[in-house]
């Protein structure tokens, strides 16, 4: 056990990659931390927020990643050390500012920590941040272990301040969530003094200034190549007959080492691990290419190193020994999804024309066991208000006579995104943060009389929903907008958003009411309802559907009910008991409406007596199933006193 802010240099602790980054930032003397929750980067932001007061660091959850980078940029321009935290798609949102702050550069160090979800395992895409670093000409570092992640932050701040350029620290999910032993370092207690020196030739990035700054940026990157060459985290190992070599970066280095070990090739295959993945250390790469005939490049997600190294060897073809570069372009590695050891072993097998076995040849037997396990996707927690809202929504649409293929529900990113896989089966689209509104507008435009409902969470509303709603009002689209306000950013672990009064560092703030914002846009139909009241919610949705159909103007419904998990935690803390509901077997007719069309986690079906039952330990007492039951068979347990 350890305390993130403890002053025990040399102590070995078990740390997750993300926590190691947080610790690295503290050791580097970070002063301002901004970001937005997103798997797989969230833990870094949370960990820093917990020690913010003690460590004298400013930490906030920004409205979205663009604002986060803007705040950090100004802090860094004003000479403070700033860190921004986000997942890969956050950079899409932040790219507008990131691709201009690169031109002005910063004064205090600015490090942007981006964790790429490779797979993807929990995101709407898998994208390679290293391509952004090339678009923006921002140096990019790739740690391979939690220890490196921690140590590289300090290094990143130094590069950033030496060259006055923001630096990207790039991780991938399995590194961010991997735990291993990390040796703590000393905490830097010195702090940069804030100072803003006016310079419109630097910070007023207009076209003519951008032109000269762009040229200067390239000169900077050229200078940084020297640092890339002597980066202490690069590893070069020339082995064996100098036949085959692997160039790799990030977590893939561990996969490579493991594969070589298990195939017995660690003394025959040379390895180059690149920690500076932009700009590339050309000299080091050439040294490697002069010592191998064939090279396999193992990286995630795109053939970034692969394409550049091919170009490097082409330009230097007289100087190098390498005759072929293998990777994704050559068909040796998959174009999508994570890399694993079997991919690497198969690639080596194909290249060297030898049989390499990593795993025992009993795939079929494994498959026979695996297929017995029923699917277990993410499900709504017992008592989730979103489940209740979707149930009411479906009932409302059906009551108005619409069939399944006669409505469109445009969804968004958050816990409510589980809806299509739940018993209520609602939601037709989900793209990126805030897209529910814009897409709903587009569907309405295209499909005219089809009822279109946009579903968005409270955090997502603040993040990027407002622009879409302004458009719906001003460019008038008759869509129903349901803002699912559970007073938290639940999916990523209950971080706060501008609708709540306590910020992530524990300080208080005045919450911004979603209804007030919408009122300010001039939208006339705004209703707030408790989704635990199924009939009321259904009736309001019907009212809204009629309104938008008559007026061709947006209608907003805010379904407001605290996240069930937060509610449970509060009750546990205050000692308040939850009175579970139970199924009266005499009244239950076994219609299965509750289990098949609502499917709350607490509900079960007893095959033997053919009746529904409720697990009293899981039941949150929300009462929704009791409202749904056509035979009034679900009742609240009498308070035992």
């Amino acid at each position, binding site marked *: 056990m350890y305390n993130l802010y403890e002053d025990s240099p040399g102590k070995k602790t078990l740390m997750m990659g993300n926590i190691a980054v947080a610790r690295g930032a503290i050791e580097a003397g970070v002063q301002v931390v901004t970001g937005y929750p997103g798997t797989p980067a969230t833990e870094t932001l949370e960990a820093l927020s917990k020690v913010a007061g003690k460590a004298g660091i400013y930490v906030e959850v920004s409205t979205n990643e663009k604002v986060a980078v803007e705040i950090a940029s100004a802090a860094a321009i004003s000479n403070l050390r700033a860190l921004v935290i986000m997942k890969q798609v956050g950079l899409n949102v932040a790219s507008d500012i990131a691709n201009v702050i690169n031109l002005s550069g910063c004064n205090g160090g600015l490090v942007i920590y981006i964790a790429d979800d490779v797979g993807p395992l929990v995101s709407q895409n898998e994208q390679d941040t290293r391509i952004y670093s090339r678009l923006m000409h921002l140096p990019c570092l790739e740690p391979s272990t939690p220890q490196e992640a921690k140590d590289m932050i300090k290094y990143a701040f130094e590069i950033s301040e030496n060259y006055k350029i923001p630096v990207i620290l790039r991780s991938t999910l399995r590194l961010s969530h991997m735990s291993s032993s990390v040796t703590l370092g000393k905490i830097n207690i010195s702090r940069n003094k804030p100072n803003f020196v006016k310079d419109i030739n630097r910070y007023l990035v207009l076209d003519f200034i951008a032109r000269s700054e762009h040229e200067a940026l390239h000169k900077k990157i050229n200078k940084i190549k020297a640092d890339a060459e002597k980066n202490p985290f690069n590893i070069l190992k020339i082995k064996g007959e100098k036949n085959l070599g692997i160039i790799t970066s990030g977590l893939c280095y561990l996969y490579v080492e*493991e594969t070589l070990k298990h195939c017995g090739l660690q003394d025959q295959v040379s390895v180059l691990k690149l920690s500076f993945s932009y700009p590339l250390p050309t000299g080091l790469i050439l040294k490697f290419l002069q010592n191998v005939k064939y090279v396999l490049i193992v990286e995630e997600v795109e053939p970034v190193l692969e394409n550049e190294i091919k170009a490097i060897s082409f330009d230097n073809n007289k100087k190098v020994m390498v005759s072929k570069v293998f990777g994704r372009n050559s068909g040796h590695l998959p174009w999508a999804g994570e890399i694993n050891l079997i991919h690497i072993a198969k690639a080596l097998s194909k290249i060297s024309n030898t049989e390499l076995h990593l795993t025992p040849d009993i795939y079929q037997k494994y498959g026979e066991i695996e297929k017995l*396990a029923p699917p277990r996707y993410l499900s709504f927690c017992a008592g989730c208000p979103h489940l209740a809202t979707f149930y009411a929504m479906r009932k409302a649409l059906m009551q108005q006579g619409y069939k399944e293929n006669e409505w469109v529900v445009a969804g968004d990113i958050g816990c409510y995104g589980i809806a299509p896989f739940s018993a209520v089966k609602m939601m037709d689209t989900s793209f990126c943060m805030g897209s529910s509104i814009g897409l709903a507008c587009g569907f309405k435009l295209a499909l005219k009389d089809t009822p279109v409902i946009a579903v968005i969470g409270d955090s997502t509303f603040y993040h990027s929903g407002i622009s879409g709603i302004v458009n719906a009002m001003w460019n008038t689209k008759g869509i129903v907008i349901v803002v699912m306000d559970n007073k938290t950013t639940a999916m990523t672990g209950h971080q706060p958003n501008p609708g709540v009064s306590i910020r992530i560092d524990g300080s208080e703030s005045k919450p911004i009411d979603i209804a007030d914002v919408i009122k300010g846009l001039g939208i006339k139909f705004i209703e707030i309802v408790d989704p635990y009241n199924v009939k009321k919610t259904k009736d309001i949705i019907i009212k809204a559907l009629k309104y938008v159909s008559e007026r061709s103007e947006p209608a907003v419904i805010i379904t407001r009910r605290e996240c069930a998990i937060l509610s449970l935690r509060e009750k546990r803390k205050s000692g308040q008991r939850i009175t579970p509901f139970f199924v009266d077997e005499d009244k239950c007719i076994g219609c299965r409406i509750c289990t098949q069309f609502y499917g709350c986690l607490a509900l079960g079906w007893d095959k033997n007596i053919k009746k529904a039952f409720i697990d009293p330990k899981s039941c949150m007492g929300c009462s929704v199933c009791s409202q749904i039951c056509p035979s009034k068979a679900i009742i609240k347990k009498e308070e035992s006193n």
Partner: protein
Amino acid sequence: MKTTEFNIAIAGVGGQGVTLLARILGNAAIKEGLSVRIGEVYGASQRGGSVVSHIRFGENAFSPIIPNGRADVLLGLEVSEAARRIRALKPNGLVILNVYKIDPVEVKTGLSEYPSISRLVNAFKLITDQIITVNATDIATDLGDVRLSNIVLLGVLAGLSVLPISIKTLRQSIWGNVPLAMRNLNMKAFKIGFNLRNP
């Protein structure tokens, strides 16, 4: 001689304490100077999803993920989850199984079938003979908290003398990683599990 590689895959449903076991084992390893890698994906825990943790001891374990067919032990806190993660286990590896099932929503709504526990246990025999079944959830419930089932299983594993960490360090790690109020109960749960194979 220090262990060069020992792999444990822990499978369960979100909320059963899979990641806590990983943390306990990982911290114990570091205390004894044993190299450790833990591979996990955080996020499914809260919402009743499928959770697996890979714990790898030894200097030959580089990757955080156990390569297929190389886990020495598969600890199953829930039967179908152990089946789902069977590919991690080496042929004739050790399975320690909590004979407890949690129906996923897909089964509750009638979309899927949950095979009988005996059918699942028999299926494991395709890969290994070393299967130890434990009524860990029952034991935990008797102790007063169903969440202790993971520690019961850890006790069983410890009792088999296959772990490359000392029991003393393991017990200290449990002590240091559970809430104060639950410490004694956790130690009790561990002891019961331990004694199941060492009466």
